[in-house]
């Protein structure tokens, strides 16, 4: 029997050599006259082990990694095709603790299936959700989503069902479904992994949205930094359309819904939903005032659902398994699971899908294994460039939207970037303001001017010029930006800055504030 071997086609895996490993497997197998069937999948998300090679055995898939092309002759010699022992071996993939301890629902298929095989997708539960949704009255479908407790995974955590209900209740036609795939937060890559590793789940989630609220057209706005995701999605849409999952008559139900991929152009601000809509309309990505909400007047002035990739990708499982099954995961008002992303200076970087409620420390150490450098983790930025830098004293905070908000932090899109004790956080605070200045759309003054002034004031503090007066000025400026900015870019860029002032003042050459010592 031909043995099946799996290597990821995910761009992260390719970026560290998966293509040459895949080529080497084919070559070595041919030389040894050993027939193998090479399957290219998404990544398992154990990214420190990429390029990861898996072999199908009677007991399950056995993992080897990180594999280099020159390791192949040794692996063949160790009979890895039958799960033979080798220094790069990790045993059964599913039993690797990093994976075994996860609760994969949204990412259930990623790494297992060929991303562009509709048979694989359906064979692993795909499109059950759409079939269920098509049988439901729109109001009941929206209620299912409300009952699941799903909140927007892009970062704002707005209840998804409420958003869909608002669009459903609008009389204006046509309606649109827009997927925000402008994953610009540093430390995040879960959207990319879904788009490259299981594109049909996103297409299915958007289709459910479309048939539920009566939208006939959807757009996926993918950032230009993700060419592989864009190509995979475009192909997946063609395949879905050919199988009547998309088009003028979805699965013979008489309902119409079709999708198109649109490429962004390197503007972080277009991850903000109104700016994204402007960009989709072919304009500068300038933030809109609201109201009106996009659900009422969105794309081309029509009612529009705008959700993040992970939000849409979480929808099919909710419809397939029921709202309660999803709701059973999580804590407080944070229901279900979140695919966390461990990044930066971390030993075991990768994707960890878990129910809300575990602590940052568990993620950093039980999963992440501490800093990649082997030094202590000194600070962690959660939730992207607008998220606070957290000191070790806050590592026991449970990952829950409300618990994070209570300490002036945010979970955002679930990106977690670790820094070791060599990090200069004053420079990171400066970078937060610099990034805001580079990426500001320019519409509102606090963000446009404030960010540039912020860099200047921070430079003066770092240069020890009248530090106390400049710190007061910086705090005042942060207040203005938080209170006066039109959107989250200017409104939240001060959070990383303030967190460094509060928790790591020594990096600015300042004394620690006494009341913060006890935290």
């Amino acid at each position, binding site marked *: 029997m031909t043995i099946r071997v799996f290597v990821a086609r995910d761009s992260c895996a390719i970026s560290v050599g998966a293509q040459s490993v895949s080529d080497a497997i084919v070559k070595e197998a041919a030389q040894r006259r050993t027939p193998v069937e090479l399957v290219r999948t998404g990544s398992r998300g154990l990214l420190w082990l990429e390029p990861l090679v898996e072999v199908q055995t009677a007991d399950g898939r056995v993992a080897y990694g990180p594999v280099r092309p020159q390791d192949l002759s040794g692996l063949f010699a160790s009979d890895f095709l039958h799960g033979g022992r080798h220094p790069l071996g990790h045993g059964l993939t599913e039993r690797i603790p990093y994976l075994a301890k996860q609760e994969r629902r949204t990412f259930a298929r990623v790494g297992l299936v060929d991303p562009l095989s509709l048979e694989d997708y359906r064979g692993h539960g795909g499109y059950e959700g759409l079939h269920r949704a098509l049988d439901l009255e729109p109001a009941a479908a929206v209620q299912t989503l409300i009952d699941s407790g799903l909140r927007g995974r892009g970062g704002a955590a707005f209840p998804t069902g409420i958003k869909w209900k608002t669009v459903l209740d609008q009389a204006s036609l046509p309606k649109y479904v827009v997927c925000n795939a402008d994953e610009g937060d540093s430390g995040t890559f879960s959207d990319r992994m879904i788009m490259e590793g299981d594109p049909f789940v996103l297409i299915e989630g958007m289709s459910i949205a479309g048939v539920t609220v009566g939208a006939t057209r959807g757009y996926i706005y993918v950032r230009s*930094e993700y060419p592989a995701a864009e190509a995979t999605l475009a192909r997946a849409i063609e395949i879905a359309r050919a199988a009547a999952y998309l088009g003028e008559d979805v699965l013979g139900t008489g309902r119409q819904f079709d999708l198109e991929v649109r490429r962004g152009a390197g503007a972080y601000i277009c991850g903000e939903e109104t700016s994204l809509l402007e960009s989709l309309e072919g304009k500068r990505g300038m933030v809109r005032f609201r109201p009106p909400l996009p659900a009422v007047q969105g794309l081309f002035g029509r009612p529009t659902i705008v959700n993040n990739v992970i939000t849409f990708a979480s929808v099919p499982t909710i419809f397939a398994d029921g709202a309660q099954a999803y709701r059973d995961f999580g804590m407080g008002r944070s229901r279900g699971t979140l695919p966390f992303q461990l990044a930066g200076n971390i030993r075991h970087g990768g994707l960890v899908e878990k129910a809300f409620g575990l602590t940052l420390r568990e993620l950093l150490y039980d999963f992440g294994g501490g800093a990649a450098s082997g030094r202590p983790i000194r600070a962690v930025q959660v939730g992207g460039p607008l998220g606070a830098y957290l000191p070790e004293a806050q590592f026991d905070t449970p990952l829950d939207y409300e618990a994070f908000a209570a300490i002036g932090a945010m979970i955002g899109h679930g990106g977690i970037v670790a820094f070791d004790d060599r990090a200069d956080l004053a420079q990171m605070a400066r970078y937060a303001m610099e990034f805001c200045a580079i990426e500001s759309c320019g519409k509102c003054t606090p963000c446009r001017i404030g960010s540039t002034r912020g860099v200047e004031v921070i430079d003066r503090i770092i240069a020890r010029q009248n530090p106390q007066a400049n710190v007061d000025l910086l705090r005042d400026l942060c207040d203005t930006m938080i209170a006066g900015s039109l959107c989250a870019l200017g409104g939240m860029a001060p959070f990383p800055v303030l967190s460094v002032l509060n928790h790591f003042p020594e990096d600015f050459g300042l004394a620690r504030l006494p009341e913060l010592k006890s935290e």
Partner: protein
Amino acid sequence: MLWEAKNDMAQDNVVATAVALHSHRPGGLLPLLHEIQDRLGYVPRESVPQIATAMHLSIAEVHGVVSFYHHFRQAPPGRHVLRVCLAEACRSMGSPQLLAHAREVLGVGLHETTKDGALTLEPVYCLGNCACSPAVMVDTDLVGRVDAQRLDAIVEQCRGTA
């Protein structure tokens, strides 16, 4: 190299094709500009009036869009574009030092092209490869776990290829 070496006539053809393909699409300006840049490497200033006419926009509006987005270039780049990620995750793994090395090896600053025309150096803010930091992108190829040695190899390869 990603794009076609162009004379003026061929350039006009690219713009005309892009206009024909995209000007009728709702919100078609970004796809149109991408089409041009994908093929020419940049959006020539002299194409802006033609695009504006086709899209029923003013020249200022089209220029405003081209200049708003970091991705769109208004001048031709080198044969290859090397983008070094400067966002937080890559910073935590030393991307500022990697950038300093790149600048030294290439003898250029950000947004500049080497004298031999081989490479344009650009910053990028996240490539979605944050668990394999630091990351760079060469044209459309993502590269992870980049150190000075690996960067040298990339530069060498770019200099040796069209």
